[in-house]
């Protein structure tokens, strides 16, 4: 077993620029064997950048790296993998169209080659071993990856990464996409690795999780390391302050107990979908923040999609009670003042190659017109208002969205719906992968919308935010509502979990 406490990987004076934007500025730090090192900071602070440079996803602009006492400059991910550095990325790292086994051995098919032919049986067999190694038995490696949901795909990525027995594992913002079971799997892997004298670097926005799981925390802000904190000195307020460089003011969630109106604005009347839902009922009231929680496969995401007309409703109907409009598809939904923030931000909520301007303007084609034409002046005002109000970190609004950090991308998504002034917003995991600074801003925004008389459905896998924000909370299990809780009555998370499982 390797000796613990030895420096495994080290970066010295590392810098990275994207054009004129500085992502990392003279960063020094070392990861030691037997250690779980957390990287924490706001969106855009450089956490993902530094870890992806170590893992060979991109080269540094300048500076030195060392791995196992030798200079380290991987030319790509495969070289890093072979050297024992594995990384699980934040966004989907699997390809939907190919089988699970092919994903696990992507780029490594050579070993299964018999002449020009790939031995698929051997590959599937090995893939099954890889999955079993991390304790996953209910994924069939022979099936196409598209048949699995996001959580399962993450597990496939983890299996892929662990199959190579990495000595340094980098986990980038993965846990927010996982339910508790998935998280437990990953925590176990991390601690097993540390115990075996290997090392782990983890990036997460969940401060509680980081404080529980990590031995040391490195706080980054605007590409500079602010502090390294050992477990004994963990103090949430101190860490938060170091992350944002200012004191976080008192309230994170809303503190009021204001109710909502009697009037029902949106109603699901015994709806059945192809998957998940069978005769599901729901009523959303005016000025209500309605939370829906549960395990990730409980059907809550389908509820959101079905309400917005994205998943086919085969029986029953979704009705806007004001005028009896039936929401048959997303066009009807959009036209009648509904908005939807997808769980899959990059693939569904944004056009990544288009600019911030065009993404926000996309909800306003019917509002910024003069006769049949779009008025550039009104459109610009429409966009500028949101860019300013949400403090989107960008050089200008004509920058492509793809170049923004996760939190800033989500701000653009919120921006387009705020600009749209939708009466009913369906938010599916609205704060996935964003830091506490952005989260606080979004909670404030959601609360402001409620005060303006809008109705909001908030679907989330994070119980604290549901408890903190919702007037009424539905807990789902196996496609049905298993419990209903009211803000005015009060409840605790233990009760909720009982209804979830």
């Amino acid at each position: 077993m390797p000796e613990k406490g030895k420096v495994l990987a080290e970066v010295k004076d590392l810098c990275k620029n994207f054009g004129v934007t500085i992502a990392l500025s003279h960063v020094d730090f070392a990861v030691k064997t037997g250690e779980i090192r957390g990287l924490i900071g706001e969106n855009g602070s450089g956490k993902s950048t530094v870890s992806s440079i170590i893992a060979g996803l991109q080269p540094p602009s300048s500076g030195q790296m060392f791995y196992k006492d030798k200079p380290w400059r991987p030319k790509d991910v495969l070289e890093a993998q072979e050297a024992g550095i594995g990384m699980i990325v934040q966004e989907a790292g699997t390809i939907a169209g190919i089988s699970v086994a092919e994903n696990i051995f992507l780029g490594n098919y050579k070993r299964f080659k018999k002449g020009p032919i790939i031995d698929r049986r051997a590959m599937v067999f090995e893939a099954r071993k890889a999955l079993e190694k991390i304790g996953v038995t209910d994924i069939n490696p022979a099936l196409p990856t598209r048949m699995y949901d996001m959580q399962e795909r993450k597990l496939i990525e983890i299996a892929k990464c662990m199959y190579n027995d990495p000595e340094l594992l980098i986990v980038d913002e993965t846990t927010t996409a996982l339910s508790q079971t998935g998280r437990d799997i990953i925590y176990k892997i991390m601690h097993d690795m540390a115990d075996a004298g290997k090392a782990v670097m983890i990036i997460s926005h969940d401060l509680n999780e980081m404080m529980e799981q990590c031995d040391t925390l490195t706080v980054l802000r605007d590409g500079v390391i602010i502090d390294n904190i050992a477990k004994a000195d963990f103090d949430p307020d101190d860490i938060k302050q170091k992350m944002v460089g200012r004191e976080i003011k008192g309230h994170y969630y809303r503190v009021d107990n204001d109710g909502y109106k009697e009037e029902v604005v949106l109603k699901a009347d015994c709806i059945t979908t192809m998957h998940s839902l069978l005769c599901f009922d729901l009523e959303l009231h005016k000025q209500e923040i309605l939370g829906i929680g549960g395990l990730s496969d409980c059907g809550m995401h389908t509820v959101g999609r079905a309400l917005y007309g994205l998943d086919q409703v085969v029986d029953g109907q979704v009705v806007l009670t004001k005028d009896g409009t039936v929401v048959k598809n997303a066009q009807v939904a959009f036209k009648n003042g509904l908005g939807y923030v997808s769980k899959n931000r990059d693939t569904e909520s944004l056009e990544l190659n288009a600019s911030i301007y065009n993404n926000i303007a996309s909800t306003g084609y019917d509002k910024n017109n003069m006769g049949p034409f779009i008025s550039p002046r009104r459109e610009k005002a429409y966009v500028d208002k949101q860019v300013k109000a949400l403090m989107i970190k960008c050089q200008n609004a004509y920058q492509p969205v793809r170049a923004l950090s996760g939190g800033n991308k989500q701000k653009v998504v919120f921006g387009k719906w705020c600009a749209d002034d939708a009466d009913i917003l369906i938010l599916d995991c609205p704060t996935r992968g964003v830091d506490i600074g952005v989260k606080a801003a979004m909670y404030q925004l959601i609360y402001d919308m409620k005060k303006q008389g809008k109705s909001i459905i908030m679907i989330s896998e994070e119980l604290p935010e549901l408890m903190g924000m919702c007037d009424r909370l539905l807990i789902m299990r196996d496609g049905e509502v298993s419990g209903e809780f009211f803000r005015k009555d009060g409840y605790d998370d233990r009760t909720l979990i009982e209804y979830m499982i």
Partner: protein
Amino acid sequence: MNATASVKTNDRELHLSLKERVEVIRSNRYFLMIFPFAMLALMIVIFGVATQGRFFKPSVLKGILSQAIIIGTCATGVAFIYSNGNLDISIGAVLGMASTLGVLAYNATGSVSVFVLVSVGTALALMAFNCTMSVVCHIKTITVAIVVTQIYGAITTLLIGGAGKIEIPYEVSSGMEDGGFRYIAFFAYFLFCVVIYHYTKVGRELRFLGGNESCAQQTGMSNAKATYISFLMTGLGVGLAAVFSVIDVSAVSVETGNGLGMDVMLATVLGGMSIFGGARSNAYAGLVGALTVAALNKGLLMVGVSSALIQGIRGVIFLALVYLNSERQKLLPSRVQF
């Protein structure tokens, strides 16, 4: 947030590598607008020098303009289809059939208006048919285009008959030419396209759908409607181009429209547009590109390059531009963050 300020103060200290500098220029939004014009200007200068000024003779320039106006009209129209993320290479065959029916209609009635109306109407109908095939039957537009190219070509050959050519009286074509029909019609169509493309809801929706269809649908846009509009806008342009091509040679033949699909594609990418659709699209790309293609064809011919070699050179330029223009996905998904 104070980050913006710190980035600005650090600007002066930055040392960018050459590659990064190129990337900064490439992602500048004005660069994409200026680049095609610079290419055109460069080409004119090079050919001007290489031919010792013969390139600027009025007859040469007029020839270039004649060719450019046909390619440009089609390319301006087809930009709508490209930006919606579709491809259609049947426009050569559509143009052939539209001009044939137009000429037949003229010869039957003797009316210029009927000639124009039949040409444009035919092109619109054929493009609508292409579109219906792909929207209703869910066949890829490019597949439909390959099949209908054969069908339309066969029908045209049948209509034209054994002579391989049908003529219209020279007075008619020269009359239309002297009346400035081509320039007026082209500029009217071009302006119409620019306005639709940049300043109306449908134009914007087309581009957004081409960039990310599921995102666009969640924002209330309909792909079927946008696809129809893109094909009809193209049909209108191809119909006009069919009339222009008849004016050009006073006749229609089985060869009319051959190779036009490739010229139009080349013009589109030379104009700075991505044939993969989405945000990097604009309406004037076709016009600038068409001038460049026509100048390139003529210029190479004048400096003594054989026409077979010209084909090869155009192919290389096309591939190089598509390569430079495409945002390639890396094999493994990664995240660019700052």
